[in-house]
């Protein structure tokens, strides 16, 4: 009798993902659901999906979810956690949501040390609206609003939110991971689990930035897109831990 090594997580609804072939959202959703299952969090979790490709996240996560306005996830999470401290709150945000329109809310929730978990999906482009430039778009990268390639003089630079937020005292844990290879996916799951554990321990703000392939808007095959994360994205967005107060012994 063979034993089951891998099967569909319980907290993930059995629905067909609307995401494109090879999209990182599908992997990220699944990892979060695995963590929720393994840590027994489903009954207490309230998730906040963003506008964007993952606006339909509530069709996949079998947990209580509240949609919110673009960029406002960190503020909504603050309201939920302050009103209901017993909940386990996570926001799921894209690069426009967290690093453009929601930058103020994100920085201030982190600065206040809100006990919430943020999953930041960085795919260097605005997916749902058709592939426009994101704050995280790389130099020279062609998008529909940087058709000649992102120009550093006119359009600035890819913004590194993990590094920026790691400077804030209210932040307990920040790690940047990727979901473009089996090894990276395993590490991403560990980081997500840690980000939830930080919330359970009441240590402060936790974020996992996930470099995520977007084959459609990068105009690549899924396999090439997954490789491009290693070849190009990690040059600008290095993987690793940027802050982790749980490693320190004694007072924070």
């Amino acid at each position, binding site marked *: 009798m063979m034993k089951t090594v891998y099967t569909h997580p319980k907290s993930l609804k059995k629905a067909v993902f609307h995401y494109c072939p090879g999209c990182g959202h599908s992997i990220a959703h699944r990892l979060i659901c695995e963590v929720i299952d393994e840590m027994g969090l*489903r*009954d*207490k*979790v*309230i998730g*906040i999906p963003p*506008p964007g490709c993952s*606006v339909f996240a*509530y069709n996949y*996560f*079998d*947990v*209580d*979810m*509240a*949609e*919110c*306005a673009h960029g*406002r996830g960190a*503020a*909504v*999470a*603050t*309201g*939920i*956690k*302050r*009103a*209901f401290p017993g*909940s*386990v709150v996570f926001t799921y945000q894209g690069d426009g949501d967290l690093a453009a329109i929601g930058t*103020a*809310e994100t*920085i*201030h929730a982190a600065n*206040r040390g809100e006990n919430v978990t943020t999953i930041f999906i960085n795919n260097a482009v605005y997916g749902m609206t058709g592939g426009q430039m994101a704050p995280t778009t790389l130099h020279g990268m062609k998008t529909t609003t940087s058709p000649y390639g992102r120009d550093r003089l006119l359009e600035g630079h890819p913004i590194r939110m993990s590094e920026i937020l790691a400077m804030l005292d209210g932040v307990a844990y920040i790690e940047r991971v990727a979901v473009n290879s089996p090894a990276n996916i395993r590490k991403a799951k560990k980081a997500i689990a840690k980000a939830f554990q930080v919330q359970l321990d009441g240590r402060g703000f936790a974020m996992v930035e996930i470099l995520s392939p977007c084959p459609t808007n990068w105009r690549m095959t899924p396999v090439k897109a997954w490789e491009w994360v290693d070849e190009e994205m990690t040059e600008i967005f290095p993987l690793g831990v940027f802050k982790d107060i749980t490693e320190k012994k004694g007072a924070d």
Partner: protein
Amino acid sequence: MTKVLMDGNSAIGEAAIRAGCQCYFGYPITPQNELTEYMATHLSRRKGCSFVQAESEIAAINMVYGASVVGARTMTSSSSPGISLKQEGISYLAACELPAVIVNMQRGGPGLGSISAAQSDYFQATRGGGHGDYRTIVLGPSSVQELADLTMRAFDLAEKYKIPVIILGDGVLGQMKEPVEFSREAPAVPSVREGALRGCGGHPSRIVKTFTSNPAELEEINWSLFRRYALIKKEETTYETFMLDDARLVVVAYGIAARIAKGAIKNVRAEGLKVGLMRPITLWPFPDEPLREMAKQVKQYLVFEMNMGQMLEDVQLALSGQGETAFYGRPGGVVPTPSEVARVISRLYYQKGLK
């Protein structure tokens, strides 16, 4: 019950706490800072309660959204420019049928404007204000006592109808001091609204959302919201009349303008002019039917507001040509005196040959 001397802003705060407000999220802006500060002092230390000075009015309204999603009685406050920032959040609250109380202590506008009292956010408040077809209940208090009473009523209405409720005050009401009594005690423990999202322990997961890729679904949501609005109009429309019995001219005013108008009307009554006041208290739902009834007896109306003519349009709509409406307005934060308004009333009275 003891009477206390309080400024309007603080009275709102005390009333909110007694109405069971669990969470306050706000950002400083003149002329309502006494309210934010009152909540920082008095709400933050209450068991189970939360005060957050947010980084912006946008963040504050979204914190209100979050707190309301999980069933807390929650509020925010601001003044005109900050209320503009909140419109997106209010649209989301209305769409998701989430109770909340939003206080607007109006100041002169448009733009950064002035810090003095005005009534130029009437359109914004009563027409939805943000994108989409929706309404919020709008209450127009005209005294510190009424600020307290209507704040409590606002929380109850919000919970009863699952709708955001706006308290439309102004800078004068907020900062003036009058004696006030509070008709209830604060609850010992914050309440949790039934059916709110509290994690899906023991039942299927739930979603609070507004987005749909199916227009027919959204159409039905709109119709359903408006059926509720019709019910609110039937049940909650409130107004006050003053010296109306033999009136030949009726002044229509709300809020601080109604206070000024009352003073003006007392003046002209002393001169023998038969003038009365119709004071809407719910600005939405607007008391259009009572006005239409009134128009069977009285044909001359003077709408007095501290703006360029906003409630004027609701009065004209209500009367639909059954009465004549004149208008007197002072925008920009100018606060007229009762004697000034009395002169305007008398001039109109004699011009129209009223006896």
